[in-house]
């Protein structure tokens, strides 16, 4: 269970949100909604441990989650709005750093990129690059998925495949937090509106 209590964060000099509290049970999902600049991405980066919380606590299974950042990093899988794809490496090599060799084939199959595994990543289209970024989520078992506009640029079939990934993750007790303006394949997700 992931629990936040009174979180606040600054972006530069500006306070983007404060007093933010929520709770996501194992297998649950939380959709972050709100206008541009309302702090959805900042909140996801805060939960990932990339942005410092100015106030409040983040609790994972009863412990302060952000106390040990290296340990916390193993718990979260973060998908930013950038794809973090290296054009000079092949599709499979792009995943090589982040997971074991055995996991790569499965992750590529989950997003339907198996036929392109040996292609240089610079040949991929924007949607395919996004799918490669999604494949990184499936590489290692991390209980908390933090997704920033995960389906941007994806076609309907890919969104459907992503829905299967999300369902499998939640079935094992994983938690999903997603910031989005598009409908996501996340049945019975709670919603947190940022203003």
């Amino acid at each position, binding site marked *: 269970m992931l629990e936040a209590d009174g979180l606040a964060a600054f972006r530069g000099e500006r306070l983007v949100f404060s007093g933010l509290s929520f709770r996501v049970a194992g297998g649950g999902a939380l959709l972050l909604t709100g206008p541009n600049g309302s702090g959805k991405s900042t909140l996801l980066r805060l939960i990932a441990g990339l942005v410092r919380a100015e106030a409040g606590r983040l609790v994972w299974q009863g412990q302060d989650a952000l106390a040990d950042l290296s340990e916390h990093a193993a718990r*979260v899988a973060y998908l930013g709005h950038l794809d973090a794809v*290296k054009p000079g490496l092949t599709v499979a090599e792009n995943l090589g*750093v982040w997971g074991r060799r055995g996991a790569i084939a499965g992750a590529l199959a989950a997003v339907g990129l198996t036929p392109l595994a040996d292609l240089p990543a610079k040949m991929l289209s924007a949607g395919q690059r996004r799918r490669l970024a999604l494949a990184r989520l499936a590489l290692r078992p991390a209980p908390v998925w933090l997704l920033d506009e995960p389906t941007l640029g994806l076609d309907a079939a890919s969104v459907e495949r992503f829905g299967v990934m999300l369902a499998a993750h939640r079935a094992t007790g994983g938690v999903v937090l997603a910031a989005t303006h598009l409908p996501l394949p996340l049945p019975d997700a709670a919603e947190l509106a940022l203003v």
Partner: protein
Amino acid sequence: MFLVLLRRELRLSLRHGSDTLAAVLFFVLAAALFPLAIGPAPETLGRLAPGIVYVCALLAALLPLDRLFGADLEDGSLDHLLLSGLPAALVALAKAAAHWLTTGLPLLLSAAPIATMLRINDDAMPVLLLGLLPATLLLSLFGTVGAAVVLGARRGGVLLPLLVLPLTTPVLIFGVGAADAASGGLAWHPHLLLLTALLAAALPLCPLAAGAALRSAAE
């Protein structure tokens, strides 16, 4: 994980081999300008050779620094590096090691022909190369700190040499001092010992500083 990261960096720079080649070619070309500028007289050139080699190696080592973290910041990989489970300091150390292997080591290897071209004193040659080993390692460590600090700054590429060059003055002084001492028949060990002492201090401190800078750049 550290080794996995290092292998990734090496593979990336192998794919973009032009970076290493550019640094080495810059080193050779810059050093080749000196005989043209100050004349080919062996005694003058040989006297200046250690200094020329050090200054040119220093400048060449700066060339690939602004892409060291810059590319990772732009495409979002930096976030994933920080979330790889390694402390930020070890991520920085892996980057410094990769910089040394892809830039420092090639510069060290190309220093011998350049020093010969500059008619360096025969006694000074082994000491020059021996001194360049800790010196290039130090350049990679200081350079990593500089690259991490200017990360995300506007015109970071210009700021970087301004930040790193003053830090490297001790490397220059002791490295050239050792080679000069050797060509003058004096004891050269003290200079090299001071250089390795600097390395011993920089090895733990620089990755810590660079790691802290990386974290604040990611925010």
